[in-house]
């Protein structure tokens, strides 16, 4: 197993509803849980509003007095640093006036770049070097993308990527199972539209699998562009066009359609998991992947239970001595 991997955990699973992950004590218990399990870096997720108070730099500052204060809090919980932050510019937020921004629309690009800037200024201060972005919205909302749309999306992320490098941060495009950039051809078009020096890819093993793409083969084919990993499992693949249903976020991912699948994402060692996690890790090793592997329990059940199971898998099935990497305090 490559030693250049930094293992981290995404905290989105704790923040599953509007008001359940707000108080300092809740954050502290989540971070200590991850630290005790050997995950000493985290991925934050951007959000909006007073109750998403780990989701924006200005709210973090208000809650902790300063970014340094936030880092002291993280360190006191046994978390060394933030590895990365996930941001979907297409998700309206009150801080952007609830604007419905679309990366495929050139008129929205200045606003998106402006919205990205606070995150890019914030990330290096918390030790992070990745801005993980949703490159384009859900397919059912955007409709098919034409050549100009791909060019526009590429141009936007090149601009954001260039700006991010000024902060020492690399922008990586996270492809998900609802995305309008969905097929291997779509992804090739996206890669062709972006500058490898400015923009990388984030592979999410479960999202690709659901979309019908083998993450192992995908990584082998695009390892030179992959700069970030989300590691999680799934039991299902899209039957073909579920992602195109109106309101696919609920129709598909919440089980509202005929298939009724109410949970798509699972822990790494789940019985019947479709992701060949050992093979994926071997592929990372084969191409000397260096960077973060963020384990994610995305829309599952109790986050502490899932984090424990994922830690067990990484330690006992992948042979990573997560807990021995805990430095003496």
């Amino acid at each position: 197993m490559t030693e250049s991997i930094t293992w981290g955990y995404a905290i989105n699973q704790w923040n599953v509803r509007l008001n359940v992950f707000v108080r300092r004590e809740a954050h502290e218990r989540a971070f200590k849980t991850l630290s005790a399990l050997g995950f000493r870096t985290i991925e934050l997720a951007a959000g909006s509003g007073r109750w998403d108070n780990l989701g924006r730099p200005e709210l973090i500052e208000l809650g902790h007095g300063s970014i340094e204060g936030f880092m002291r809090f993280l360190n006191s919980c046994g978390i060394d640093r933030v590895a990365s932050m996930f941001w979907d510019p297409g998700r309206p937020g009150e801080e952007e006036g609830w604007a419905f921004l679309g990366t495929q629309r050139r008129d929205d690009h200045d606003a998106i770049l402006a919205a990205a800037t606070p995150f890019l200024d914030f990330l290096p201060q918390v030790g992070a070097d990745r801005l993980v972005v949703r490159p384009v919205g859900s397919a059912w909302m955007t409709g098919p993308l034409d050549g100009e749309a791909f060019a526009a999306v590429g141009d936007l992320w090149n601009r954001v990527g260039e700006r991010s490098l000024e902060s020492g941060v690399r922008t990586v495009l996270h492809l998900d199972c609802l995305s309008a950039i969905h097929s291997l051809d779509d992804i090739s078009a996206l890669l062709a539209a972006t500058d490898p020096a400015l923009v990388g890819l984030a592979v999410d093993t479960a999202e690709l699998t659901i979309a019908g793409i083998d993450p192992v083969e995908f990584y082998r084919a695009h390892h030179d562009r992959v700069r970030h990993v989300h590691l999680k499992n799934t039991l299902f693949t899209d039957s073909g066009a579920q992602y195109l249903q109106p309101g696919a976020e609920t129709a598909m991912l919440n089980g509202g359609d005929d298939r009724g699948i109410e949970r798509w994402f699972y822990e790494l060692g789940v019985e019947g998991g479709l992701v060949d996690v050992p093979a994926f890790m071997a592929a990372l090793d084969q191409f000397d992947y260096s960077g973060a592997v963020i384990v994610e329990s995305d829309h599952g059940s109790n986050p502490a239970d899932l984090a424990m199971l994922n830690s067990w898998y990484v330690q006992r099935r992948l042979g990573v001595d997560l807990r021995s990497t805990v430095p003496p305090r």
Partner: protein
Amino acid sequence: MTWQKWSYMDHWVLDTPQGGQNPYFNRRYLEQYIRQLAALGFRGFDTFFFYLPMAAQLFGSVKKFEEFLQDEGFDKITGIFSAYPNATKFTAPHVRSTHDRIFADSERIVEMVDGLAVENLIVMPTNTYFQVAPITDEKIKITADLWNRVGEMSISHGLKLSCHFEFWGGIRTPEELALFFEYTDPRYVFYFCDTAQHTIAGVDPLELFRTYRERCSGFHFKDTHTIDRDEAYRTPPDAELMAPNVSRWFHEMGTPEGLVDFPSLMKEIVSSGFDGWLTVEHDQAEVGGNNYAEATSVAKWYIDNVLEKVEADR
């Protein structure tokens, strides 16, 4: 050097399609639970006597269950807990006529783990306070006689009969404890220190450990936020869940309101040369919408980040 002998006492509740259930719901749930504990680095496993037949059913035998534990990084099953919280005409340690039954029960328990290297048979030595009161020398003597007898039997199977005192039990004050240990044979009857139970009863577990160090065979490391100043221990039929003013007595290590001075206790344990298992226990972790997974992780964080530091001061 870090303390290697951390074990976990089995109280969990897991979410199942049939609601919250103990991990023995089926083999998959039990395996998941063990793996969750393994992820945190626990190496010993304590359980209740009534789970042994269930583990045997799920794995083929208790030995095969222990082998599964060992495959997942545990050393072994370290302790078996047995109790008679409620006095009945069949089982009341302060009533001599029930002793044969309790002895026979205990013998069956130790026979279930014959051939393994379980170290402690942990017992509640009395029933609830309100059923034993008034507490007299004679009742403590009768109780001691029972456990001397059981202890002699259990040590012959390799298990130390370890007495674990509840805040709501019939032996709860320093004076009652002293009398009990005076009446019991140090070859057969040992002291098991539950940090929260003693603290709730207004007794310092650190002082008790100092007093009974030579007879101490283990610990339940758990915390409390409340000292019982209102005689809740008298509450019939149960003080743990039915006390009028306290809905949750027990908490995991590492909460800001915790009353147990674990760093001082740890320092004393390390200094004393104690070489047994330190067992983390969470009863009531689910009260108030909390959960065992998080409570266990937070407690292990406290061990790794606070108690390990104490050890480093040696």
